[in-house]
């Protein structure tokens, strides 16, 4: 009896030890799971923050009120929004560069045209001034005539009086 009792006691003790081991393992697994769960929650909050910065939601509101949001839909709307924003940025940068480049080219063309016109004007003015000086030097006795008036008309850029 005593031997059997000892054996039974041992059996009981073994049962406790097994239970303890299983409980320890379960506690470990639970803790591990809890850490994983906490990590996932942290990531989801982070994702929510990122999506709200882009003006969207990580967990989009369900189509029907009261319906549960589908897990697979999480982040879909947000991703689309971010892609759209990136495309917008790219497109506007391209458009801006185009506009600026066009403006620079147009300005350059204008300046070139104006420089050509200015050179032409300067040459014409110099010739007219020269002619005026010659005609003015040729005046005798304060009497001015057709040639002097012609040079004056030319200098002022006036039209031909016969027009």
């Amino acid at each position, binding site marked *: 009896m005593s031997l059997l009792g000892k054996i039974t006691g041992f059996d009981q003790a073994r049962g406790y030890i097994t239970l303890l081991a299983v409980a320890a393992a379960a506690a470990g697994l639970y803790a591990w799971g809890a850490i994983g769960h906490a990590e996932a929650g942290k990531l989801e909050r982070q994702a929510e923050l990122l999506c709200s910065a882009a003006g969207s939601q990580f967990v989009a509101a369900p189509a029907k009120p009261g319906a549960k949001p589908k897990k697979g839909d999480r982040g879909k709307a947000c991703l689309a929004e971010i892609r759209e924003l990136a495309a917008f940025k790219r497109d506007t940068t391209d458009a801006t560069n185009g506009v600026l480049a066009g403006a620079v080219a147009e300005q350059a063309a204008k300046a070139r045209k104006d420089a050509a016109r200015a050179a032409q004007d300067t040459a014409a003015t110099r010739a007219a001034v020269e002619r005026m000086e010659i005609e003015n030097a040729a005046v005798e006795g304060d009497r*001015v005539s*057709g040639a002097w008036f*012609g040079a*004056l008309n030319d*200098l*002022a850029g006036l039209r031909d009086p016969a027009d």
Partner: protein
Amino acid sequence: MVAVKVESVPPAELTRCPEAPRGFPDGAEALMPPEVRAAAIRLATAYGALSKQLVRLIEWNVPGSCGGELDPVEPVANAKPAR
């Protein structure tokens, strides 16, 4: 940021090309002392310079409005090589 080209064109009244008046008649004769001639020359010089400057200003703002297109000196980007 989107850059948008803003056209700022002066009113049409301001970009009207100056029309030169008719000059002194061909066979005109007059007695003019040197001071009067000098004044007339100054006026004519100033008028000529002003008109040219105004034309340039108008052409800058509204290209082609004063006609008389200059020689095509500006190179065209897709111009065909001269033969």
